[in-house]
């Protein structure tokens, strides 16, 4: 299999110490070394020396959440998520896309969104948003808000975009959305080993924003955020010249400047760090600042928080690649949230919200799952 020398060398830096067993969520959920970062690296090393690559090898590489928790604690500092991404690329090049990968490619490159929906449906969430909130579409504004595919197209996630838009309106922030012109950011393609497709999506997206003449982008999706901020410059070979921020940073600023005034909430709340926002982007304090500033709230950290936070089970396209395994990881994270005694687990990501909700459901854990936008909007809405 064709795999560049650099990646092979990187794989060889794994010293097999096995520390990753304490951090790899898929290992924690299965206690099976084939689902562990070390297992994946050693398997890759063993298999790459031969010509015959099996489906099982591919499955194992596609089961990595790319959450980066292993790398964070890896003594020799092996960049496991990057290796898994490169391996996915090499496997796609040699064997073609998997059925899941092909569907994703088709949806994104042909329909413009991750689930192959009609683009005009991107604004359905507007239908039951109170009329007092005025949303500009494709207009000149200070911020361009990108809700991302999941929040705009999955009805169960509309609450995220509706709440954020409500909060922007209440705080008097000038913003616009692209509506049916918004395209998937390409992150699922990138982490699914389809780099060239991701690159053309990136190019198109940057062009579209530049044509609108806006240079500040805010998104409530940590993956869109990470993709725009970190991978776009890398894929396009140049800085985008755009200021990209995550919604929670803007909300923290609005709270601090007195533009948002949450009412009292007498509840115990814990916070789940999304991987792309926390460990990968270093945004840990903004959501905590917001939560601890809400009057009446009792804030409890989970045992594994910030860089040590365990993925919700939704990373690395796992929900598409292996929904059962994804569910096991969510159940694990929900059990850690329940340990704190919190009645609500808050996150800053529509994907975490989805997977954690399903984890709470399957484990019959009595805990509410909310995006920070939802929680804050309920407390600020007049």
């Amino acid at each position, binding site marked *: 299999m064709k795999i560049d020398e650099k990646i092979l060398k990187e794989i*060889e*830096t794994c*010293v*097999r*110490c*096995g*520390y*990753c*067993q*304490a951090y790899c969520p898929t290992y924690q959920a299965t*206690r*099976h*070394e*084939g689902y*562990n970062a*070390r*297992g994946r690296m*050693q*398997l890759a090393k*063993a*298999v790459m020396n031969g010509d015959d690559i*099996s489906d*099982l*090898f591919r499955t*194992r590489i596609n089961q990595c959440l790319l959450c980066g928790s292993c790398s964070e604690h890896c*003594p*020799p*500092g092996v960049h496991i998520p990057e290796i898994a991404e490169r391996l996915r690329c090499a496997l796609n090049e040699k064997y073609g896309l998997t059925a899941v990968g092909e569907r994703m490619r088709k949806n994104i490159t042909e329909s413009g969104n991750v689930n192959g929906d009609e683009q005009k449906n991107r604004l359905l969430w507007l239908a039951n948003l109170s009329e007092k909130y005025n949303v500009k579409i494709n207009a000149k504004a200070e911020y361009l808000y990108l809700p991302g595919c999941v929040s705009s197209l999955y009805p169960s996630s509309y609450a995220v975009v509706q709440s954020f838009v409500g909060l922007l309106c209440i705080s008097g922030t000038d913003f616009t959305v692209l509506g049916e012109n918004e395209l998937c950011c390409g992150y699922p393609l990138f982490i699914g080993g389809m780099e060239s497709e991701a690159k053309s999506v990136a190019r198109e997206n940057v062009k579209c924003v530049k044509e609108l003449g806006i240079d500040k982008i805010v998104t409530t999706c940590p993956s869109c955020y990470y993709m725009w901020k970190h991978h776009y410059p890398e894929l396009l070979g140049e800085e985008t010249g755009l200021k990209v921020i995550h919604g929670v940073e803007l909300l923290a600023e609005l709270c601090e400047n007195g533009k948002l005034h949450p009412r009292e909430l007498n509840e115990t709340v814990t916070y789940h760090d999304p991987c792309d926002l926390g460990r990968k982007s270093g945004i840990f304090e903004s959501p905590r600042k917001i939560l601890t500033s809400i009057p009446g709230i009792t804030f409890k950290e989970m045992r594994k928080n910030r860089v040590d936070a365990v993925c919700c089970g939704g990373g690395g396209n796992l929900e598409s690649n292996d929904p059962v395994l994804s569910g096991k990881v969510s159940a694990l994270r929900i059990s850690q949230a329940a340990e704190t005694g919190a009645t609500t687990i808050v996150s800053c990501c529509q994907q975490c919200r989805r997977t954690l909700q399903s984890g709470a459901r399957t484990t019959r854990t009595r805990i509410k799952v909310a995006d920070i936008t939802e929680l804050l909007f309920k407390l600020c809405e007049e």
Partner: protein
Amino acid sequence: MTVELLKERLEAILGAENVLTEYEDLVCYSFDATMNVDAYIPLAVVLPETTEQIAEIVKIAAEEKIPLFPRGAGTNLSGGTVPVGGGIVISMCRMNKIIEIDEDNLTATVQAGVVIEDLINEAKKHGLLYAPDPGTVHCATMGGSIAECAGGLRGVKYGVTRDYVMGVEVVSADGDVSRFGGKTVKNVTGYSMTQLFVASEGTLGIITEATVRLIPLPESRRSMMAVFMDLESAGKAISAIIRSHIIPATLEIMDNATIRCVEETTGAGLPVDAEAVLLIEVDGFEGEVVRDAERIVDICKEFGAERTERADTDTERDSLWAARRAALPSLIKRASSTILEDATVPRSAVSEMLRAVSAISEKYGIPIGTFGHAGDGNLHPTILADFSRDGESEKVEAAIKDIFAAALSLGGTLSGEHGIGVAKINYMKDEFGDSGLRLMRKIKKALDPDNILNPGKLIPFDGGDVI
């Protein structure tokens, strides 16, 4: 028996999802954390959840004379869990229930696959401490750490795993299940079977459950660092601390090669020309801890420490220990392969041993950084090897041989806490001579006549060199 039939029989006991026979899965159980030991692909891997399942598996293996390789987290550093020659790997990781914390008897009863840190955290909730803390505490299992008799940083004051194991449940080579020891402090009924299984490296039986001792969590602690420009002074300071009847919870040392490595990777501000850095922690009651910390700082100064630092808060403590925590990662990053040894000497010979190791490093032209538990004499000479160089394997092997010889000549032992496994099996004779080996072989043969329990480890079954 064909692999297909074996698979069928194992699946009947465990269910198909808990028997792995695909090459891709077998590869993941073909190695452990030991760098200089070859991987072996096993016939099958099983993931049992009960002692009864293990007993059934052992019965099949005994009948068919198939080697069994019990395995926890596979973090050991002596090749102890590598399925040498092939066979069935028994992963204990799914037997991870903490059965009981008994606050009246100060014991914990755990399944073998419980992660050590999970027990430590659980005990902490009751104000108790499980003291053994090997470097792999966050991922290694109780079963593995008992089978290897893991040590750790707190050895100098709290001893090692052996000192905490009060009872075990064991599946023996014929598939029988026995329990030895228990919750009583005093127990002289029969041979000390519990202790026989500690450090037996899975060669005498498969530990499935254990009862271990817990102690009250110390109330307070203080950490200190002392930098010495010459090794002898550091050695004298270590002896003086112990001679003044202070037993620190930890007393760690890093040699010059390690200091340089740590400084290069972390920029922690250590002087690169220092010959030794000592990191010391005392724990106990607040008054005692404050007094001991002051005395230790005075002793270090008296013996010529260039610099001493004391941490009074948790944040200061963390930054003091950051350098020690960075020791192994920094060394690992410097070489394509690192071989971590654990030759151990009486603590009075620590500085002599460090000198001997740097002489060996110079002799073979191979960088060796040494750090470790100076307070209990357990040092970790870490060989930074590059096996792509001609003749490197031979040089590394010769250096290891010299390190062992040096430790034995100073009244020490081959291994303080990593075990013998396959990596040191051929050196056993140097420590025990023929008579000692014969006696140990008799024990092995009595308990495992067909050599199906972790064969090829710890003791050469038929005499002579194994590999």
